[in-house]
């Protein structure tokens, strides 16, 4: 039993953190006070967590394998465009409509698509994502680009490509340039309503499959080995190039799946903005979940909990800051990500007793954190902004300053 606790400290800690955040939100926000409100909140959290969770898992596999994939956000936009583009291409014409430029041509009819159309579109989209992943792998293993650079190029390039493609597709199908495509199909758009569970099921299935892959198969063990020491892995007869292929394809294909889900959820794909910055959310979820960016460490359970933690916080910010919650989101999420990873780090290095504020850098950061606390209080309070801010800043300064002084006194004592 104690071994179980020691081994899964990180996961247990996160689970507790998730519950604490939920409990705080539940007491402070009245949406939790009715059964309907609770159900609705749970649904939103799970749906959002599922969509993020799906490609966070892919990002985590790459991180465990010792790489990094920055392209997720653009792949989301790109795959949404491809998927919807394919839908309108494959959809039958609607004889009741006419193009503005050419009265002989009709718009595609996307209200009720035959089932094979989305199925084929999905397969092709995933296949293209596989190609993108393979291209990354080639750049990384053969051309020997660092993963950061190879996938950064995709991050920038794929979004741009999607924006160009959508213009050509819409010219072909609508007779006019558009920067978005909208689909009205009942079945597909129902993921935003009654079929919200679809993403959750996909997330669960994928989690299960990856858990088996990572912790129960030889391939999984080899992924960890490669992430930990690539050269030693190669000399142990592990085909590191093939493993990378697997990892980067998993990453781009999960991102593509998420892209399809996002597009259906919104009903409109607009590559200029879809999935903007989501790659960082995925990496954050993985890192909060205990993956090490240097590779070789991480678990599926951790990534799931990391994802939930992020979404629960975002939800809580939305509930607790009644005015302009989206403005606060970044601040709070940023803070808590640092906190979660720092706690993890300090625990694993046993550094609870070490000095936090050594030297000039330490003193400077006592000031920085105090000012930050003050500014945050002042922007969040609705009245007496200046007074509140000064109070909190002053309080933080006193507490941290005391700690810094204590550290210095103790340090002198032990260094006789």
């Amino acid at each position: 039993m104690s071994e179980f606790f020691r081994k899964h400290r990180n996961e247990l800690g996160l689970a507790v953190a998730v519950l604490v955040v939920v409990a705080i939100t539940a007491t402070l926000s009245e949406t939790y006070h009715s059964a309907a409100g609770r159900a609705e909140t749970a649904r939103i959290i799970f749906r959002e967590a599922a969509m993020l969770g799906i490609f966070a898992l892919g990002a985590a596999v790459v991180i465990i394998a010792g790489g990094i994939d920055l392209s997720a956000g653009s792949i989301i936009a790109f795959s949404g465009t491809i998927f919807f583009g394919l839908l309108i291409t494959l959809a039958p014409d609607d004889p009741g409509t006419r193009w503005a430029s050419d009265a002989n041509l009709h718009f595609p009819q996307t209200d009720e698509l035959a089932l094979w159309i989305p199925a084929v579109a999905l397969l092709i989209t995933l296949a293209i994502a596989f190609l993108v992943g393979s291209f990354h792998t080639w750049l990384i293993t053969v051309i020997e680009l660092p993963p950061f650079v190879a996938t950064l190029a995709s991050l920038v390039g794929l979004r741009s490509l999607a924006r160009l493609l959508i213009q050509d597709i819409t010219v072909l199908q609508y007779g006019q340039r558009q920067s978005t495509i909208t689909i009205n199909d009942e079945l597909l758009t129902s993921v935003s309503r009654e079929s919200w569970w679809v993403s959750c099921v996909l997330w669960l299935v994928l989690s299960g499959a990856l858990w088996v892959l990572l912790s129960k198969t030889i391939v999984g063990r080899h992924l960890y080995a490669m992430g930990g020491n690539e050269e030693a892995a190669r000399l142990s007869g592990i085909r590191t190039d093939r493993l990378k292929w697997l990892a980067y394809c998993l990453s781009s294909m999960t991102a593509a799946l998420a892209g399809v889900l996002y597009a259906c959820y919104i009903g409109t794909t607009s590559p200029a903005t879809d999935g903007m910055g989501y790659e960082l959310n995925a990496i954050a979820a993985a890192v909060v979940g205990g993956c090490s960016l240097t590779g070789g460490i991480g678990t599926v359970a951790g990534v799931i909990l990391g994802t939930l933690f992020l979404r629960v916080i975002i939800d809580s910010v939305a509930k607790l800051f009644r005015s302009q919650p989206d403005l606060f989101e970044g601040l709070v999420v940023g803070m808590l990500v640092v906190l979660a990873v720092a706690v993890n780090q300090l625990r694993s290095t046993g550094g609870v007793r070490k000095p936090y504020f050594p030297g000039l850098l330490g003193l400077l950061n006592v000031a920085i954190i105090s000012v930050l606390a003050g500014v945050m209080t002042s922007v969040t309070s609705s009245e007496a902004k200046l007074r509140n801010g000064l109070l909190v800043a002053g309080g933080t300064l006193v507490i941290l300053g005391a700690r810094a002084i204590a550290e210095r006194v103790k340090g002198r004592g032990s260094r006789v």
Partner: protein
Amino acid sequence: MTLDPRPSTLSHIAVRSITKRFPGVTALQDVSLSVARGELHAICGENGAGKSTLMKILAGVITEYDGELQIAGRSVRFAGTRDAAAAGVSIIHQELNLVGSLSVAANIFLGREVRRAGWLLDDRGMEQATAELFAQLETDIRPSRLVRELRVGDQQLVEIAKALSLRSDILIMDEPTSALTDQEADRLFRVIGRLRQQGVTILYISHKMDEIFRLADRITVLRDGSLVRTLDREQTSRREITHLMVGREIESVRLEDGRCPGDALLDVEDLSLPWPGHARRWRLENVSFQLRRGEVLGIAGLMGAGRTELLECLFGAASPPPQGRILLDGRPVAFTHPAEAKAAGMAMVSEDRKRLGLFSRMTVRENITLCTLRDALRGGLIQDSRERRLARESVEQLSIRTAGTEAAITSLSGGNQQKCIIARWLRTQPRVLLLDDPTRGIDVGAKAELYTIIDALCRRGMGIIVTSSELPELVTLCDRILVLCEGRVTGELARGEFSEQRIMEFATQREVHASAGAAS
């Protein structure tokens, strides 16, 4: 130099009842020791006895311990390596701690770079100073080379040069010669001799008894974290020291003859490995030899002779691929990846444990079973209990000292980590086993055990190629020894003809006219 036991207040280093516990292990138990100024004090003990831990405490690497440490009569408690360096202590670590992407000179001056005009780095100056240090060590490593291009032996020399450059009055050497061949070690000993004339106090750890008896004034033996005894070198013998270390007698292994090699297993013909952009042009040049079933073939040579390169070629790990022919069981093979070599029944324990062997984030179990996970499969999935059993088997077979198969590999002492890697490859039951300096950092007892294991494997028909930086090891183990010099085979000796002197002659035969196999 005579050493009268001086009162401990005068001793240069005094260790007072130091105890150090790690989770699950007591690495040091109430150890007290005093070292006189200018003394060369050797520390002996089995793998995991606590030698490195004690040295790390002295050097400020480990800061949490119970007990007291005095340097030059003053009680000190280092908060880090910088404090220790300021107090005049420097250390050559057992595990090499260099920055691979920096040049040799930059590594040596890391943290105290030589500057020009206040801010600018004086690369020229640092390289010059490095070259001077290397001249002392009589080695010709180019100071501007990147450390990651260096072999372990060269890296070790860089570590030594780095420690020397600090000009400390206490120098700790934790197995400094483990990757050096006898010649390089001799050069180091000459440097040590000069340091002693300057009055430097040296703490010296080694598993090589020859060195210890050649250098030490006094010898301290640790066993299971406790200090067993400190002895004057004149008043003791190797036998006594090993006995104190292990707690029992170790017969020097005499592998009785009667090993009779069978038919050819591995045929190497005109193997050449190009060396682009180097004056020598070839790392290996026209190497030909044969390995038979049930034979142990030794490869001797100085550093840079191409021992490691040769094994890497055989294992498909060399890039670019070598030229020439390799026949395994009469069939030509050309491995382009270690995976192919492994599938064909080859195994290689590489010399650079930390960089090329160890998975430092994994457990002992994962490190041992990595190459043979198939054996732990059940219905396509790894079965935990099976895997643990396999790992436990190996831990017992090689008597690896660990808190359990689930312990982190980094919690093991250097020698025990090495045993884990050997175990990983033994588990694959290869036909050809390539061992690149396999006993680096392994204690006398474990060495003897390993020799017996190698002997047994070979009697069962495995073909084994061993390189070693220690000639006595090759002489004990091998049926035949191939001597390399600058990438060429300069000699081959059969068991009856072994002598260290002849091997050294071949190993330093730099002229081209020496024909391969002259001695056979």
